């Protein structure tokens, strides 16, 4: 059906957050470029706007509404129930149930595991670091998978973990991100992985300044500081966004939960010209081995959210 | 009505130091200065008197470039000047000592003096040069001050000296003083007048605003009288009398003495026993009040005389419950107030004691409140019981309006902001509030500071009337005249302790003055 009217609601980070929301935006852009169909957009700035935005989109004739991020779960569950004729889709949510709602869940722990393996091999000191934005379960999930990956290579390795802060500005504080990174480097870390939005830019830059390595997150951040970003943990939200709209356009929309892990290509590590020189053959083969172990089920990466604890 | 006077010395060669023609200034609806003509002879001490709100401060503020006149011409030493800012006035050789000092309280004397006239960018160099020059000035006019002391530690008399020094340092040869003696003790006033005479001898022209006719008679050469924004008379000092001036000022004859008549004291209502107070936070734990004992009877006025800063203020605060005694006791009825069992202002109030504080601006009134609101400060319970009690506007207004009528507060407008009343009327508001509580004991600090003679007369009459009704009054004042006029007995304080209590009939200015100076 060509009469679809898609809409996307970005979350508070904004569509240019250089990671999560921006990933979605890439997917949206690709969809628009390929089909010529304009997508209505909105970026929320406070809690109330999520539901309001969703309603406004429906009122304005949207046939498929994509919500970005778990914070929109509540809003989408209400609005989708009120509008059974409209299609909805949400990323990072997997616990809702509605016939017109598709949910995407990513196995960030698996992707983090992969980059953890890479980090462990790249590290000379057997000390690596992780910088998170806020101390919330989602970020712990990244951290835990990463620790699992590192320890699978070097059981004795140290993984330093830091969180940036308790206020929303924790996602936009590159100075603090840089400082946390330097503190980890001072303690011996030579590879630092971040899951901290804008704060992460400080992480990458601090690692580059000290001649150490950083690992990007969500979208491919290898190009931010070529030669200093070992790799990036890709979370293919762009795929989710693109798929949602394409399926809706082609009449293939299905409800339910779509789990995207390594097997589905939903999470991955990034390899391109920018980090080709950093990723040695040894690293490459080790990561690929880890990937096939996950695929074969030989390795099951622990999901922090399943029990709020990390066994590694 | 405009009056000008002839050039006193009769020579046309010496121009007037200041010569004003047709000066006008209005603030909104108020015409503060209307068609003012004034000539001041070079080298004279020229007095200006007038009731509160007559426009004196406004006029001199115009002369100092602080306000701009709406119309009129100003000549300084014969030259017409446009005084756009204080910088212009300073350049024209005019210096001013404001009624409320223009000193930075946290700065040292030296810093205050050179502020705005430092000479160089480097403070150190500016200080050096200033020290030399100030030493010369001090020697010439007999103005000695510690240049490195911080202003806020200074008594007002010294602060004023700094103000004078500041003006002279800036090269003033016309010096304006706005109510300089309002806050001074008689001794300080004498010293000030010595300084003014020395300045006059050196050729400085002085313009002096005061409410005290005694001072006009003592020091000026000419005097001008203002009323309701207009200049109503100019007199040669030697051609006039205080009575005449008072009558021109107020528009009717004023009785300055003879209000007092013998009291009929009754039982003792308050007894102080070896009362003492140590400074709380001072490093040297100095003694502010020590071993004060007296008994106050109903129906008498006990005057407390003393050079300011000798513990009278603290004594008043002790009695008012604002401070707790360090030693000794105060007995009021059955209640013994001691260090262990201190009192509070609210308890004191409940013991039927009212208090007119020394500082009406900081303590007695809330300047930003309407008169009606200031009129119940400390007595809100009368109108509104309980902490969350309802404050009835109408009741507030009526209460205030009736007191304003009784005490002749002008303008009698309860909704006017307290800060917009003149000092005399502000004082009347405080007095009205405290007296209307019909206390059995009334504590009064500086009853008539900065108040014009008409209002002084009124306030004095009220105090005597209170006494006659059986109220016991403690009157603290630095005005010896006031103490002598009103008191039945006089306690003299020096350095925190009592020099003794003198009966009225044995008291005269000389003997009390000696006691105040600590000579027994």
């Amino acid at each position, binding site marked *: 059906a060509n009469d679809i009217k898609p809409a996307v609601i970005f979350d508070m980070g904004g569509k*240019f957050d*250089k990671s999560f929301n921006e990933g979605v935006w890439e997917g949206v852009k690709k969809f628009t470029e390929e089909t010529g169909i304009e997508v209505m957009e909105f970026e929320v700035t406070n809690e109330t706007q999520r539901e309001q935005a969703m309603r406004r989109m429906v009122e304005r004739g949207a046939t498929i509404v994509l919500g970005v991020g778990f914070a929109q779960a509540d809003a989408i569950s209400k609005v989708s129930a009120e509008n059974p004729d409209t299609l909805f889709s949400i990323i990072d949510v997997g616990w809702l149930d509605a016939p017109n709602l598709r949910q995407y869940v990513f196995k960030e722990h698996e992707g983090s595991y992969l980059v953890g393996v890479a980090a462990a091999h790249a590290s000379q000191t057997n000390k690596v670091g992780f910088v998170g934005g806020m101390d919330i379960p989602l970020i712990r999930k990244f951290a835990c998978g990463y620790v699992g990956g590192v320890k699978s290579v070097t059981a004795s390795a140290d993984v*330093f973990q830091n969180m940036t*802060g308790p206020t929303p500005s924790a996602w*936009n504080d590159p100075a603090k991100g840089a400082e946390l990174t330097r503190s980890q480097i001072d303690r011996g870390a030579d590879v630092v992985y971040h899951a901290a939005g804008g704060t992460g*830019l400080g992480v*990458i830059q601090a690692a*580059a300044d000290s001649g150490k390595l950083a690992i990007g997150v969500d979208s491919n951040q290898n190009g931010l500081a070529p030669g200093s970003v070992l790799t990036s943990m890709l979370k293919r939200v762009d795929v989710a966004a693109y798929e949602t709209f394409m399926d809706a356009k082609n009449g293939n929309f299905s409800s339910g939960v779509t789990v995207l892990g390594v097997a589905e290509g939903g999470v991955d590590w990034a390899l391109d010209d920018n980090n080709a020189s950093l990723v040695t053959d040894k690293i490459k083969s080790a990561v690929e081995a880890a990937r096939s172990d996950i695929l074969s089920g030989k390795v099951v990466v622990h999901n922090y959210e399943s029990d709020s604890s990390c066994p590694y | 009505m405009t009056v000008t006077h002839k050039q006193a010395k009769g020579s046309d060669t010496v121009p007037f130091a200041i010569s004003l023609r047709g000066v006008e200034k209005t603030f909104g609806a108020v015409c503060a200065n209307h068609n003012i003509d004034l000539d001041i002879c070079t080298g004279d001490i020229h007095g200006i008197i007038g009731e509160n709100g007559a426009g004196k401060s406004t006029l001199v503020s115009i002369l100092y470039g602080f306000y701009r006149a709406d119309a009129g011409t100003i000549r300084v030493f014969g030259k017409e000047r446009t005084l756009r800012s204080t910088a212009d006035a300073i350049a024209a050789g005019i210096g001013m000592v404001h009624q409320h000092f223009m000193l930075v309280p946290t700065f040292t004397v030296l810093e205050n003096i050179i*502020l705005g006239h430092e000479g160089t960018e480097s403070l150190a160099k500016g200080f050096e040069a200033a020290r030399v020059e100030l030493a010369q000035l001090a020697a010439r006019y007999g103005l000695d001050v510690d240049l490195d002391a911080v202003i806020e530690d200074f008594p007002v008399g010294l602060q004023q000296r700094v103000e004078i020094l500041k003006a002279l340092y800036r090269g003033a040869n016309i010096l304006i003083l706005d109510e300089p003696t309002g806050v001074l003790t008689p001794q300080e006033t004498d010293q000030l007048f010595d300084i003014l005479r020395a300045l006059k001898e050196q050729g400085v022209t002085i313009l002096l605003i005061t409410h005290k006719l005694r001072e006009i008679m003592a020091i000026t050469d000419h005097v001008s009288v203002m009323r309701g924004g207009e200049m109503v008379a100019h007199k040669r000092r030697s051609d006039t009398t205080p009575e005449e001036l008072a009558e021109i000022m107020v528009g009717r004859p004023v009785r300055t003495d003879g209000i007092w008549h013998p009291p009929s004291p009754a039982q003792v209502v308050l007894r102080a026993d070896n009362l003492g107070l140590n400074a709380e936070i001072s490093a040297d734990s100095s003694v502010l009040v020590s071993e004060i004992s007296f008994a106050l009877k109903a129906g008498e006025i006990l005057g407390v005389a003393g050079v300011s800063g000798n513990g009278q203020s603290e004594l008043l605060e002790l009695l008012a419950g604002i401070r707790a005694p360090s030693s000794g006791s105060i007995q009021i009825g059955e209640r013994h107030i001691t260090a262990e069992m201190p009192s509070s202002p609210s308890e004191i109030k409940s013991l039927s004691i009212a208090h007119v504080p020394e500082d009406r601006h900081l303590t007695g009134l809330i300047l930003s409140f309407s008169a009606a609101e200031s009129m119940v400060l400390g007595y809100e319970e009368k109108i509104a019981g309980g902490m969350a009690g309802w404050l009835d506007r109408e009741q507030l207004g009526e209460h205030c309006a009736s007191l304003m009528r009784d005490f002749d507060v002008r303008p009698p407008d309860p909704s006017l902001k307290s800060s917009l009343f003149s000092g005399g009327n502000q004082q009347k508001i405080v007095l009205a509030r405290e007296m209307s509580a019909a206390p059995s004991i009334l504590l009064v600090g500086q009853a008539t500071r900065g108040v014009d003679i008409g209002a002084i007369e009124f306030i004095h009459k009220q105090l005597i009337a209170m006494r006659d009704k059986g109220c016991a009054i403690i009157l603290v004042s630095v005005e010896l005249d006031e103490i002598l006029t009103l008191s039945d007995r006089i306690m003299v304080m020096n350095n925190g302790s009592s020099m003794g209590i003198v009966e009225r009939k044995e008291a005269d200015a000389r003997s009390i003055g000696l006691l105040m100076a600590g000579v027994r």
Partner: protein
Amino acid sequence: MMAELWLQFVLALDATIRMSTPLIFCAMAGIFSERSGIIDISLEGKMLLSAFAAASLAALTGSAMIGLVGAIIISVLFSLLHGFACITHKGNQVVSGLAINILASGLTVTIGFAIFSQGGQTPFLGREQRFMPLELPFIEVIESLPIIGPSLGVIYSEVISGHNILVWLAFLAVIVTGYVLFRTTFGLRLRAVGEKPEAVDTAGVSVSWMRYKAVIIAGILCGMAGAYLSVAHGGGFVREMTAGKGYIALAAMIFGNWRPVPVLLACLMFGFLEAIAARLQGVDLPVIGQVSTDLILVLPYVLTVILLAGFVGKAVPPRAIGVPYAKER
């Protein structure tokens, strides 16, 4: 073990200096402004604007220096706006500051997006577009000294050496602030105007002009703070990247009683608390064991309150602060 602890401590000091630098600039800016009687809560916004200006200009021209100059200019312009509102038009100083902060949030991202199309961020800056750390000479010489050599050497090489020029400027700013405030005529008038503007006015000095000068200086210092964040310590601009540092600087200024050296110490204290908070997270401490992340993150704020309640006396602000000067009563 001892040597390791010592090293960590020294490194924490090093971090303290880096973290404190923007606070020091801003707090000095605050001193100038508030000593003249103008409350300045727009430190945050001006810092954000100048961080943006510095990063954009550095990205466009390739010169960090041009970035710094641009940062200062933009910050001064907004200081003038603040002055125009609060000095010329006697507006509410807090409202004006808030307005500037909000404007800054919007303006930086909007313009950034228009220029770079990177969602309001500027491009990542290369080393040559930033102020890089300067290594001081004689590190080997000091390290080879007998006995004290090693420990002194660590301090010298880690804490003293290896900072960029703006860090040095921040410390210089403290000295200059102290000198200007207390040793020059200008400083005397500035302090007077914040304590008792009438005294300055009657001395024939323009109160407004003095206050304008003060806010301009505050603007210059804020500009440096912003540039430090985006082209020295950091390498690019990110939306809202000041993350409340302007408010912390304000707190440090009050904490230090509006006096340069105590304020410097307060800034260093905030920097130090952040630095060790970063270093204590996830570390096994003797006796206590691992401290929870949340506890560590809140540590600087709790400690500030405790210090404030326990040790620092009453803060006495300049007396005329926040009150527009009017001759009429």
